[in-house]
């Protein structure tokens, strides 16, 4: 046990913990400003924003302060370390670092996308000098340079080199470098080798100022207009934790949400730029019924009752549980279909696969499985259907006429099912399809329902490392769409509004594998396997 004294507060640090002064101070509730340090990157100690006074306290309680200020990011605390972070000396040092950084900064905040979440702005207000001495220089426009995946506003850069370290240490692709010397230092790429890797979007989040700009997000929104909602990426089975930044039910960007157990500080570009499908005008909206050649638009009021009646009359039932469903939705669907027909055939929807898992030197992995919840849905099927039946088998059964009515849940991107497969469903008496996009299958459905996109759902997913994460909706679905959860809730004959938390508790109580989820689910998720014994 090590005892550290920070601004007069003593904190205990566990044995074997390696904390630098910034992290230790954070535990004491003291924040030390920093630019170049990042918990996920190596320490360079180049920006000098984090300078503090450090010293030691010996066993007799005497305190000996060091002669110079030291960078907190590069100072490991150990037993007896004493830190002073608020002295006049420290404050002066911070103000001077700020002044130095701003000396050649364009200060074009009005057109800088970072404004509002820019560390340079924030720290200037908190630690900068009250009146600037830069009277002679007027704001100017920053030079813009195309780095490949992202754009660089050269003059805004404060040369913290976070971006450079990222491409060396985490993505391992080494595209970025610092060129020039002294005042001529700039971030750049080699000609012909642009920044192009699947993690490149992270450098924009890493950049403490507005130097690196996301071309997708550039000039789209001011950050203060958006609200951030915690979410889980559904692009692959890794289930990265994300922030969904939204304004008036329109997603404008996706950012990584720190989660040490899943994605640490990063997400891949696939997930980051996956949101446009949510606002794709081609999405399936509304509910309609097809009878013979007629199509009739349906109202959602009373729809669940109508569907229930139709399912009851259909005869032998089957259901396809898509790996895009949340646990709650899969549970409600399986339960309802089984209740209507105890012999019903429950199958797992097709699992989209692409290539192999991609691993990066920093430990980041993009799964080959392009769906969020295969693991969870399989567990539910394993309990409620006695085993996992593949989609191919289901299609076979349909083709053989063993099933008369089927409920197919989707949530896939376009093109998940081909004409030939879909044609086999034609002989069904009743086919209910709820999907995100129209497909050959949905066009053959007796009841075709628009489905919710990932940001519109309430529920829980289990990622490939059996970690369960619960999320709430970030945006409302477009007009004419009701989420799977709310339709299935009503179909199950339950009163009131769809309640994901209650459903999770219910299924956790029923299915032993999910027992750990009976307690509270932390923000960073819950490892179901590790917690099995508990």
């Amino acid at each position, binding site marked *: 046990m090590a005892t550290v004294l920070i601004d007069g507060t003593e904190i205990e640090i566990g044995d074997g913990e390696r904390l630098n002064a910034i992290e230790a101070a954070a535990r004491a509730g003291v924040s030390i400003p920093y630019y170049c340090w990042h918990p996920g990157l190596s320490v360079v100690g180049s920006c000098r924003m984090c300078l503090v006074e450090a010293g030691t306290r010996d066993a007799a309680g005497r305190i000996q302060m060091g002669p110079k200020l030291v960078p907190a990011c590069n100072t490991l605390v150990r037993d007896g370390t004493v830190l002073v972070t608020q002295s006049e000396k420290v404050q002066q040092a911070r103000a001077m670092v700020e002044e130095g950084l701003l000396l050649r900064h364009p200060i*074009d905040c*009005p057109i800088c996308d970072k404004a509002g979440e820019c560390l340079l702005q924030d720290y200037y207000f908190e630690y900068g000098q009250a009146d600037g001495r830069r009277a002679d220089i007027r704001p100017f426009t920053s030079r813009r340079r195309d780095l490949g995946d992202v754009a660089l506003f050269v003059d805004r850069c404060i040369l913290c080199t976070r971006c450079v370290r990222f491409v060396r240490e985490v993505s391992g692709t080494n595209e970025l470098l610092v060129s020039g010397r002294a005042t001529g230092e700039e971030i750049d790429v080699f000609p012909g080798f642009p920044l192009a890797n699947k993690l490149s979007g992270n450098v924009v989040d890493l950049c403490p100022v507005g130097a690196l700009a996301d071309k997708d997000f550039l000039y789209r929104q*001011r950050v203060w207009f958006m609200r951030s909602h915690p979410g889980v990426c559904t692009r692959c089975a890794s289930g990265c934790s994300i922030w969904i930044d939204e304004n008036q039910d329109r997603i404008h960007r996706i950012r990584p949400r720190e989660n040490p157990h899943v994605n640490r500080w990063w997400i891949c570009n696939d997930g980051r730029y996956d949101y446009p499908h949510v606002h794709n005008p081609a999405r399936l909206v509304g509910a309609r019924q097809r009878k013979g050649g007629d199509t009739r638009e349906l109202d959602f009021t009373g729809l669940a009752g109508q569907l229930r009646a139709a399912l009851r009359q259909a005869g032998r039932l089957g259901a396809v549980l898509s790996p895009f469903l949340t646990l709650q939705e899969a549970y409600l669907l399986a339960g309802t279909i089984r209740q209507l027909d105890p012999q019903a055939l429950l199958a797992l929807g097709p699992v989209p696969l692409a290539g192999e898992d991609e691993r990066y030197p920093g430990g980041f992995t993009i799964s080959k499985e392009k769906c969020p919840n295969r693991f969870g849905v399989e567990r539910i099927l394993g309990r409620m259907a006695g085993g996992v039946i593949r989609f191919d088998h289901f299609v076979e059964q349909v083709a053989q006429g063993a099933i008369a009515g089927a409920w197919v849940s989707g949530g896939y991107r376009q093109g998940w099912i081909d004409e030939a497969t879909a044609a086999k469903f034609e002989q069904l008496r009743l086919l209910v399809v709820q999907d995100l996009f129209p497909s050959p299958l949905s066009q053959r459905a007796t009841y075709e329902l628009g489905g919710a996109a990932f940001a519109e759902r309430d529920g829980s997913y289990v990622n490939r490392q059996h970690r369960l994460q619960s999320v709430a909706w970030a945006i409302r679905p477009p007009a004419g769409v009701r989420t799977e959860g709310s339709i299935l809730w009503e179909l199950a004959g339950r009163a009131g509004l769809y309640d994901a938390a209650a459903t999770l508790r219910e299924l956790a109580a029923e299915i032993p594998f999910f027992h750990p989820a009976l307690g509270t689910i932390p923000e960073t998720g819950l490892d179901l396997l590790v917690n099995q014994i508990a």
Partner: protein
Amino acid sequence: MKSDDKSIKWVEEPPLGLAGRSYVPLLVGGITTTLKHLAGPKMTVESPEQRHAIVDPLGYRGVHRLNRDAQGRVKCVACFLCATACPAHCIDIVAAESPWPDREKYPESFTIDELRCIFCGMCEEACPVDAIELTSLYDLSGKSREEMIFDKAKLLSVYDQTKDAEPMRSAQADRATDSACPDSGERGEEPI
């Protein structure tokens, strides 16, 4: 606030004198004031035959205009500060990369719902480049709601209409501060 809150100071009503209790002085006072005004001069300006005299057209908060820069392009840099400051949420901007090499960001579309606007002038205060200003035009009217939603072209045309009578703020400020300390100079003239 609860009525037994300690911070409330209870002030005693001044007791009524005999005159007050007889109510007569109050009755007389009330009716005298009324009669005085009944015959007094009228304040009404018979618009539209007569026009209001605007004392300070530059300080008046009427219809908005979007100023142009030296090359006649919209001066706004689409920073959204006006939209952020606007208490009525009546400014809608769509920003984009500018088509001009010397400028980075510009408003692809810029609309103000003049019906929703409360003419508080916060947008003018917020603008870092003096691109949006309130003119002294006060009698705007329209036949439909749509007509009262001013777009970029219309706002620029208001500038063309009023630029001679009401010079841009930054131009005035530059003239005023040429000899004064440089620090207080407006930053707007620089093409940002």
